[in-house]
């Protein structure tokens, strides 16, 4: 039996009077890739932020392996160090070079010696294809390169899983490919990932499971073959047909 890495149970989150997440439950096993899709404003990003408690949920429980991380007395910093997070807007530390962006967590959070941290960081930067840019500052890198550095920053901490919050939505079309390629390789290598994205090609080819979220709940969940071909809900079918239409138009 494969080990469960993350389990979310009946999660709720409101901002003011608006309930954004209305009871979400799912789990992800080791080496799986789950892709969360759905219309804008349905709580996909909020869900990710609730998982690593950047936005603590109002109700519900979250387990990382067998530790319940939604308890208030837990050392959340230690938990976050083992959950990677890749932001839509990269959020690289602007005053640090690519190398320093990647190694600062190893040195300041894990207390690793500079020499060892540097070695690991360079390896991770090479892994995302940026071995020649380690001394560049974020502003000297393209969007796609910045996002790859931020993936390396997450990888360096050897996380148990990585959360991707629309990692390609802020990128120019010609830069999306290089980021997706890195993510596809990660999935192949068995990285456990939860990815919020609108890239249906990626979802179709890489996801073990697709979660379709609408209006704060999980409407449907299943392997891409099933959910794309035989969606159980009208909303799901409508969403996919719209997206496919869009992609079709792009192809023209």
């Amino acid at each position, binding site marked *: 039996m494969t080990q469960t890495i993350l389990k979310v149970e009946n999660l709720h989150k409101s901002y003011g009077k608006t309930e954004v997440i209305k009871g979400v439950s799912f789990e992800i096993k080791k080496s799986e890739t789950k892709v969360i899709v759905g219309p804008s404003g349905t709580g996909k990003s909020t869900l990710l932020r609730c998982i690593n408690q950047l936005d603590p949920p109002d109700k519900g429980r979250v387990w990382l392996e067998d530790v319940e991380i939604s308890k208030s007395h837990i050392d959340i*910093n230690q938990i976050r*160090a083992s959950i990677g997070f890749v932001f839509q807007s990269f959020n690289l*530390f602007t*005053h640090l070079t690519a190398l320093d962006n990647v190694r600062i967590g190893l040195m300041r959070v894990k207390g690793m010696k500079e020499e060892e941290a540097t070695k690991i960081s360079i390896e991770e930067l090479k892994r995302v294809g940026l071995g020649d840019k380690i001394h560049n500052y*974020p*502003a000297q890198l393209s969007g796609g390169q910045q996002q790859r550095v931020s993936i390396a920053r*997450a990888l360096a901490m050897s996380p148990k899983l990585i959360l991707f919050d629309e990692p390609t939505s802020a990128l120019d079309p010609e830069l999306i490919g290089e980021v997706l390629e890195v993510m596809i390789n990660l999935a192949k290598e068995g990285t456990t990932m939860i990815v919020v994205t609108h890239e249906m090609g990626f979802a179709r080819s890489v996801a073990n499971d697709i979660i379709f979220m609408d209006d704060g709940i999980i409407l449907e969940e299943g392997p891409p073959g099933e959910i794309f071909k035989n969606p159980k809900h009208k909303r799901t079918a409508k969403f996919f047909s719209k997206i496919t239409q869009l992609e079709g138009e792009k192809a023209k």
Partner: protein
Amino acid sequence: MGTLVTIELALAFLGLGFVVGIPLAVGEVYGNKFVKNLAVLPIVEFFRSIPALVLLFLFYFGASSLNLSLSPFIAALLAMGFRSAAYQSQIFRGAIKSIDVGQMQAARSIGMSKFKAIRYIILPQALRISIPSWSNEYSSVLKDTSLVYALGVTELMRQGRYIVARTFGNAILVYVVCALIYFVIVHFGVKLLDFLEEKYKIPGYEIKKVTTRA
């Protein structure tokens, strides 16, 4: 002699102002209601709302009326140092608030505590942004050391006064020399800060040279 005292005073005021100003700024931005409303804001408001000369008298004569004997230097340091802290805190607060919230989120997401995130991510960026406004504060504080004259500290102005008195000399000449000395100290200090700004600028985030087009 007086010049050295003036420089010492300015460095002491700015130093205390920096050491106290940073926590004030951090407390105002990241602190809870109690920290903000009961500690930070009262200090900042008090020291910004009262004229420097009045602060100096309050600390010097206030201390002696409480049977604490503060030397003029210590009284001046507390009054002017905290006054500078109040102003510096607002410089740093503005800089901290100008930093994108994503920086804090990213720092927390790799497991940094709030304190570490402020120490290693927020402040290094905020301090760089602060240098131009801080250079303003430096020049104000340096010139305001002349007010300490009133407590009897022999700084540049009082030294000038003594020279005028002793030599029955040309008062205006002596004061012009004082003015020149102030000018030179401020000028070179500002140049040094410009140099630091240039040296520590973040590639891509330097404060842009304004080019006007007709």
